[in-house]
């Protein structure tokens, strides 16, 4: 019953938003401001064409690789910096530098230095995302409840077991926050990367539609990808969060 109520609570604002949009677009009647119905018609049209799925899958492929590599590197470096003060002291200024490096600059530099390839595209996304993961994980390491580590010394718990059973579960919430914010950020950067230097993917298609001022298709493609991210959020990240937080 609660689930049904939740769904209603979630869907209602979207319906109101679409309704207001429809009314506004209908009365303004501008070619650059299509109605939601026109956008959904365009989405339906594109979904009957193979190219939508091809470009979506290309973007998804880049997002996936960039996401997993960023998370792995970010968690690894974050743990090192969070656990060892000396490493933190040495690399903290480097971290601040990369945190403040504009995404656009990284993308341009990667394309210039490594060529217009998928490697450069994914590298640019990773360079943008990893510092944010590191900051989160570092924070997680600082909030560890050190009392639990007394058990390791008293009971002589092997390092591997103490890492997976005592250390890691305490930073799971921080990893999860990084994953959720990471997914939304990464796909936005991937679109930018594709727009600037790839010949396929949603970003590339958006640049094509932009040249023809085809706002309806731009919105249709964007909605298609937002829909995929929502699916990942609802069917992968949220169940994972529930599983991890089951003990709370």
């Amino acid at each position, binding site marked *: 019953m609660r689930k049904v109520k939740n769904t209603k609570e979630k869907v209602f604002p979207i319906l109101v938003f679409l309704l207001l949009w429809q009314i506004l677009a209908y009365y303004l009647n501008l070619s650059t401001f299509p109605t939601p119905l026109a956008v959904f018609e365009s989405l339906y049209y594109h979904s009957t064409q193979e190219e939508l799925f091809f470009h979506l899958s290309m973007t998804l492929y880049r997002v996936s690789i960039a996401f997993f590599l960023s998370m792995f590197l970010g968690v690894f470096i974050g743990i090192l910096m969070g656990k060892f003060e000396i490493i933190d002291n040495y690399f903290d200024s480097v971290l601040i530098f990369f945190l403040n490096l504009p995404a656009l600059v990284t993308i341009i530099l990667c394309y210039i230095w490594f060529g217009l390839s998928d490697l450069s595209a994914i590298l640019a996304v990773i360079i943008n995302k990893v510092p944010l993961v590191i900051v989160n994980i570092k924070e997680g390491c600082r909030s560890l409840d050190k009392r639990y580590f*007394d058990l390791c*010394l008293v009971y002589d718990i092997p390092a591997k077991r103490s890492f997976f059973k005592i250390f890691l*579960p305490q930073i799971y919430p921080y990893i999860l926050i990084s994953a959720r914010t990471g997914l939304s950020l990464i796909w936005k950067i991937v679109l930018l990367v594709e727009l600037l230097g790839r010949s396929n993917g949603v970003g590339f298609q958006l640049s094509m539609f932009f040249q023809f001022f085809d706002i309806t298709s731009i919105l249709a493609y964007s909605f298609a990808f937002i829909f995929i991210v929502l699916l990942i959020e609802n069917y992968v990240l949220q169940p994972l969060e529930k599983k991890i937080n089951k003990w709370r």
Partner: protein
Amino acid sequence: MLEINVKNKAYDKHLIINNFDLDIKESEFISIIGPSGCGKSTLLKIIASLDKDYTGNVLYKNQKSIKNLAFIFQDSRLLPWLSVKENILLVSQNKDEKIIEHLLIQVGLQDYINAYIKELSGGMKKKVALIRAFINKPDVLLLDEAFVSLDYPSAKQLRVLFYDFFKEYSPIVIFVTHDLNEALCMSNRILFLSSKPSNIIYEYENIPSFDEKIFALKKEKILDNYPNILSGELY
């Protein structure tokens, strides 16, 4: 034989423990009583090697470390993200889950084997901590006010359970408490500590131990009077 010699232990130049010297025989149950903040818990941390910032040494069978040690903390210190079974397995040297099941049956927690810690009452948590402490059949067991913050019947029941485990495994026990009755009832020897810098000011020895006649008589008498209270009356 456990030899504890703490010459000096200080926090921020304040001397906490000074010239503390204690030898404990195998299977001896020692209680330590002293005013709050006198360094009783610090002493346990030193014995457990959780605090190494002191002068002196702790030797067990002439070795610098106690290989098979257990510690029951005041706060139980169970990991909330692990189940009861996983909490015990975490410290267990033996991966045989049947032993855990058997011990859980012994303390009446067999239905909670896969429960998370938040599902347990204070007394149940202490029982799990008790099993965790005894799972490796420790040589030395440290208890830091292990039975406080429990209601009276739960505390009594836990003492009886502890007594049964102690009889079965016979480790050296060092028990920090504020409760003189508890100490009198459970230990062979009681040490009274002074306030900072803490030192032994009085030693009360040769108290009949758990499995001696007097205790058995006490327990028997209570069970006669209250046959339904299996938890027993220790005082």
